[in-house]
């Protein structure tokens, strides 16, 4: 059956009906056989009764006359019939004769006929008993059932063959034609299914009409949709251009700070050379890019809790190189319709701005010639330091070069500048790493010494400076310049508890040194008088 099933619809239908018919025929044959076997049994009994009717007078005479010869003839005559299995004839005067043939399959109910006297008035003289042959009934029933089944089977097969042809021509073939036509039609084409000639008014005909209607409708809808799609595509292209070419790096993070999506620009800002080759989706945004991830994480925390736009300048990870990379980052929380929390943000490259700002700040705070801090910056640092907790034991040295004006006037400004630069370098070399050297202007310098546990350290440094400056300075012009320095020292908080008073005290001490022969250092003592020390003298 598997060969048929699956081939085509009409074979399938007919196969299923055939299977069902086989089952029905089997059941019907079984039932029919049961009925037929009863019928055959009845028939056998009727036949036997008729046989008895035929031989009854002879049997009566045989019993009446106790004639075994006649009785024997009667029994043999009866046994010649297929329907008879066993015959017994008995008489009331002790006469008895029995004959049978073959083996009976199963017990059959015997048929008994009382034999009356042929002369007396209904006086019983014996009986004739016949056992029917069960094989006879069985064969009869089997034959009837078999012929019935064969009949049904042949009729079924013939009917099914006819059905196969009819279904094929009326149903399967038109359907196949429709199917093939539909298969070859592409969406949006103008082609339609041809109406079926034999099925104009039936279901298949209506199907064809309906399909053609749907094709028409599809055509219309498709063309409408194409127009709409082109519009959408154009709009999307515009948006995509904006998204891709924007100078702002846009990004979307999930609640835990992992990247969901970002623009190519973002990757460029963040330092990837070929943005198209990198995918950072799913990575932690903060640790991936920022030098101080905690700053960005704090921004996220703030955005989450305060529900406002957070903005901050952040230094990027890979900026330990030539010039530091800086980015301005805007971050805000968004909650979508489903209640999922995300972060959206924008990053602008502000490295240039930060670099410019830094340069400007540096220029404002440092002396252009020597590179030392300017007065304002130095005073600001001193003020900050004095206000801090470890302000004790801070020493201020105010320096004024001796003989610089003369050298400047003698050799020119160029040599003066060289001298100033050289002095600055020497001063820096004389102080400790953390101490500040600053040019107050002209040939005046200020040195701030932090954390000097003893005043001697200050004096030692002053002496070192004096010794260092005393050495001749060589300019490019093969000119040797010899100058000196006068140093005024002030001690915090002994000589003043603020910048002004400290500087004033140091200034006074420095002038005292000038008056006392220069090239030395001086400081106001406890008595109020300024003691001057000139180590080289």
């Amino acid at each position: 059956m598997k060969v048929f099933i699956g081939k085509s619809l009409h074979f399938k239908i007919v196969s299923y009906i055939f299977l069902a018919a086989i089952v029905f025929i089997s059941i019907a044959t079984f039932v029919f056989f049961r009925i037929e076997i009863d019928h055959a049994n009845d028939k056998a009994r009727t036949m036997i009764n008729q046989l008895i009717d035929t031989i009854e007078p002879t049997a009566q005479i045989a019993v009446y006359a106790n004639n075994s010869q006649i009785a024997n003839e009667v029994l043999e005559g009866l046994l010649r019939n297929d329907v008879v299995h066993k015959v017994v004839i008995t008489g009331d005067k002790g006469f008895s004769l029995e004959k049978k043939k073959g083996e009976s399959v199963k017990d059959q109910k015997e048929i008994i006929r009382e034999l009356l006297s042929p002369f007396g008035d209904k006086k019983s003289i014996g009986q004739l008993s016949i056992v029917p042959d069960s094989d006879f009934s069985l064969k009869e029933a089997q034959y009837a059932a078999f012929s019935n089944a064969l009949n049904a089977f042949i009729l079924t097969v013939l009917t099914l063959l006819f059905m196969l042809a009819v279904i094929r021509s009326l149903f399967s073939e038109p359907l196949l034609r429709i199917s093939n036509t539909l298969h070859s039609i592409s969406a949006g084409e103008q082609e339609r299914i041809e109406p079926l000639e034999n099925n104009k008014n039936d279901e298949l005909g209506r199907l064809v009409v309906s399909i053609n209607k749907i094709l028409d409708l599809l055509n219309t809808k498709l063309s409408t949709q194409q127009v709409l799609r082109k519009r959408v595509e154009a709009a999307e292209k515009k948006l995509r251009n904006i998204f891709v070419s924007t100078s702002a790096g846009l990004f979307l993070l999930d609640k835990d700070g992992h990247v969901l999506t970002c623009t190519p620009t973002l990757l460029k800002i963040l330092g990837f050379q070929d943005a198209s080759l990198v995918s950072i989706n799913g990575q932690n945004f903060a640790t991936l890019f920022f030098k101080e991830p905690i700053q960005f994480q704090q921004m996220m925390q703030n955005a989450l809790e305060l529900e406002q736009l957070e903005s901050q300048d952040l230094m990027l990870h890979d900026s330990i190189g030539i010039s530091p990379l800086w980015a301005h980052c805007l971050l805000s929380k968004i909650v979508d319709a489903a209640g999922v929390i995300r972060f959206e943000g924008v990053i602008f490259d502000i490295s240039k701005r930060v670099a410019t700002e830094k340069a400007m700040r540096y220029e404002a705070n440092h002396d252009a010639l020597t590179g030392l801090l300017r007065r304002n910056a130095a005073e600001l640092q001193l003020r900050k330091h004095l206000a801090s907790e470890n302000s004790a034991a801070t020493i201020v040295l105010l320096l004024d070069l001796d003989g610089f004006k003369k050298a400047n006037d003698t050799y020119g400004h160029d040599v003066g500048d060289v001298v100033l630069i050289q002095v600055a370098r020497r001063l820096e070399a004389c102080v400790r790493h953390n101490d500040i050297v600053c040019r107050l202007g002209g040939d005046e310098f200020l040195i701030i010494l932090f954390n000097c546990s003893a005043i001697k350290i200050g004096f030692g440094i002053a002496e070192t400076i004096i010794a260092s400056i005393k050495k001749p300075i060589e300019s490019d012009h093969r000119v040797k310049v010899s100058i000196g320095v006068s140093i005024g020292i002030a001690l915090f908080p002994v000589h003043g508890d603020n910048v002004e008073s400290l500087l004033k005290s140091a200034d006074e001490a420095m002038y005292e040194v000038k008056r006392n022969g220069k090239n030395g250092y001086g400081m106001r003592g406890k008595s109020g008088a300024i003691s001057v020390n000139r180590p080289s003298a």
Partner: protein
Amino acid sequence: MIKKIFTAVFLFLFATTTQAEIIVIGNLKNNLQSLNFIQVEDIFMGRSRSLPNGRIALPIDQATLRPEFYQKLIARPLEQINAYWARIMFTGQASPPTIVADDNAVITIVNENKDAVGYIDRKNLDHRVRILLILN
């Protein structure tokens, strides 16, 4: 017409008045005193070969009263009786009773044979035989 009716009535009266009274007779020397209808039937139809006292019976038929006898005994026409015997004789296992001419012949045979049983018209009865059964 009247003559016809008269003839019919006459025939009817004659027939009834000429009905003979048949008696079954036996030998005086036999101790058999009487027989009943069934015993007589069995003996004459060959069903039973012996008398109730166990002796082999010798039934004697007679041509004159034969139809009347069988009519009275078993209510069957003579043709049926003959057919019956024809069938029995064919087997060779038995034969019908011997047929003699009339009452006198019957009386003579019965008188001579101790086991003989015959039948006669009652008006011909004499002292040589014994009445075993009166058929009526």
